[in-house]
């Protein structure tokens, strides 16, 4: 079975993010970049399915700049078979990215697309759903368990207040939640092997899809600095302050 896993390059959650003074984006000097953690879970799930079935192909895809190769190589070092970088010289919005991936998917014809439920940088939570719509495939979002039997797939979803189990035929799109699995590390022999695995580049313009931006980021603001706490003398004063200053009661 062929599984396509879209991968996004995001800032390492451990780095301190600084918003540029003009609010147009974040400062990227000295930022370390990693695979979006939810996409890492998607790669792991695809690898497990392949290992369980004893055959198949795990193909990674990114829509981004040349530097994104590094995250694709990391995914190859984890064990994916090959990678496709759809090269876009400038960042695209989610709709354009989904269109590009959908186009490649219609050529590649995977049985499954497994993708992180959201990226930890912009938290959009859109690409998986858009892909399902564009391809006309069933979707199972926020998966915490995936099981395959023949042509059918069963997914346990994490929904508010509980779990929901859905079953659907493939091809299909699955988006991964945090508890689906714990991704493996890229091993050192894996890193060496990744060097020789195919990483093909396609120019995004050559796909013939509409890339016109529909979304504009107007400004980014850093979260407000936390104020130091203050001690009050009595319960009466506390109630008073919560009412008149904090205005929460």
């Amino acid at each position, binding site marked *: 079975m062929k599984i396509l896993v879209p991968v996004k390059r995001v800032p390492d959650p*451990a*780095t*301190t993010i*600084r918003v540029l003074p003009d609010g147009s984006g974040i*400062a990227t*000097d*000295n*930022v*370390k970049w*990693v695979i979006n953690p939810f996409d890492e879970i998607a790669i792991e799930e695809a690898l497990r399915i392949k290992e369980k079935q004893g055959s198949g192909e795990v193909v990674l895809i990114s829509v981004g700049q040349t530097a994104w*190769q*590094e995250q694709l*190589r*990391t995914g190859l*070092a984890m064990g994916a078979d090959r990678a496709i970088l759809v090269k876009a010289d400038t960042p695209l919005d989610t709709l354009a990215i989904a269109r590009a991936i959908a186009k490649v998917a219609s050529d590649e014809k995977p049985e499954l697309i497994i993708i992180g439920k959201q990226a930890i940088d912009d938290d959009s939570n859109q690409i998986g759903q858009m892909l399902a719509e564009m391809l006309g495939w069933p979707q199972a979002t926020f998966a915490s368990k995936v099981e395959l039997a023949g042509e059918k797939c069963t997914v346990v979803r994490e929904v508010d207040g509980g779990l929901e189990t859905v079953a659907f035929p493939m091809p299909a799109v699955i988006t991964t939640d945090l508890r689906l699995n714990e991704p493996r*590390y*890229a*091993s*050192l*022999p*894996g*890193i*060496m092997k*990744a*060097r020789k695995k195919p990483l093909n580049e396609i120019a995004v313009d050559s796909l013939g899809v509409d890339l016109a931006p529909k979304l504009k980021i107007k400004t980014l603001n850093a979260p407000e600095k936390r104020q130091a706490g203050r001690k009050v003398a009595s319960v009466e004063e506390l109630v008073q302050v919560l009412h008149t200053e904090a205005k929460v009661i």
Partner: protein
Amino acid sequence: MADFISDLDFYQLDELLSPEDRMTRAAVRQFVQREVTPHVEKHFADSTFPLELIPRLAEFGVFGANLKGYGCAGMNNVAYGLIMQELEAADSGLRSFASVQSALAMYAIYAWGSEEQKNRYLPLMAQGKLIGCFGLTEPDHGSDPGGMETRARKDGHGWILNGMKRWITNGSIADLAVVWAKIDQGITGFIVEKGAPGFSTRDIHGKFSMRASITSELFFDDVRLDAGAQLPAARGLKAPLACLTQARYGIAWGAIGAARTCYQCALDYTRARKQFSRPLAGYQLVQNKLVNMLTEITKAQLICLRLGQMKDAGTMRPEHVSLAKRNNVQMALDIARTARDMLGANGIVNEYPVIRHMLNLETVNTYEGAYDVHTLILGRDITGIGAFD
């Protein structure tokens, strides 16, 4: 606040690393943070080595990572150095284990062993299924291993080995010992397997340093060895010294990891800790210490990166390694001691990693050529006059 603080890459050396180097470091760092750091304090307190990590480290490809063939990962030397750095950021004992397994025991067989010995031992050692140790030091011969008293005499086609070794990392948990001994023609090496009649070990207790690492004595009492136990290409003191060069290379990198942990801890602590109504980090005296640490770590990083490039290019000499080992370990020890001071009373408890690193680094300063022994090696190199031979 600058972002580099969290990664301690002040001179953006990451740009000089290959994507594979960065990937390697990221993977090892993640592994260490998740699977080593949470348990290391307990192992140090109980004086136990985390044996459970051996298969995990092996699966990861850490053992013999920079050797080619025989089931080894075949990484370049910068990537190998980065692995050592990340292991020692957790504990010098863990890095010691990896150094002894890879740079001493495996390398000795790799460099001086027969094809048969290589095929027999190296793949299993890379898989962590065989643990090695390296017996050079003796009770009366440390800095001067050439004076060793352990002897092997010919007996028919084989050998009879007699003597003892002391301060041997992994000694009692090793499946095989690479043992250096004198024969009529000079110094040579032997592979002695665990359980060989006449071969026994005893652990050294009461250590205040390297407690999460096993250190033993090895005893050889008429140990009978086949002819095939000798490392055929190991002739003279240069054979064990070549192994030490490999291990010292990794130590120079490892020291950066230990120093980084101590610096990070001192930085976080002094930014949060207030005395005289102001964070400690807001005082000039404290800032001076932090800036000195940053400067020294950055210098050590530059030394190691260049040394690694030279090692890959085949232009590295043992004296180059001496400079790096001498400088970087002293640097790390100074930083650990200063960080210990900056944490005040909290600097003496194991809620913080600093005192453990400080104590470990006392060993790192002594083993693999004490600080002053490297001074003598470098002194001989630049003056042409040996002060110790």
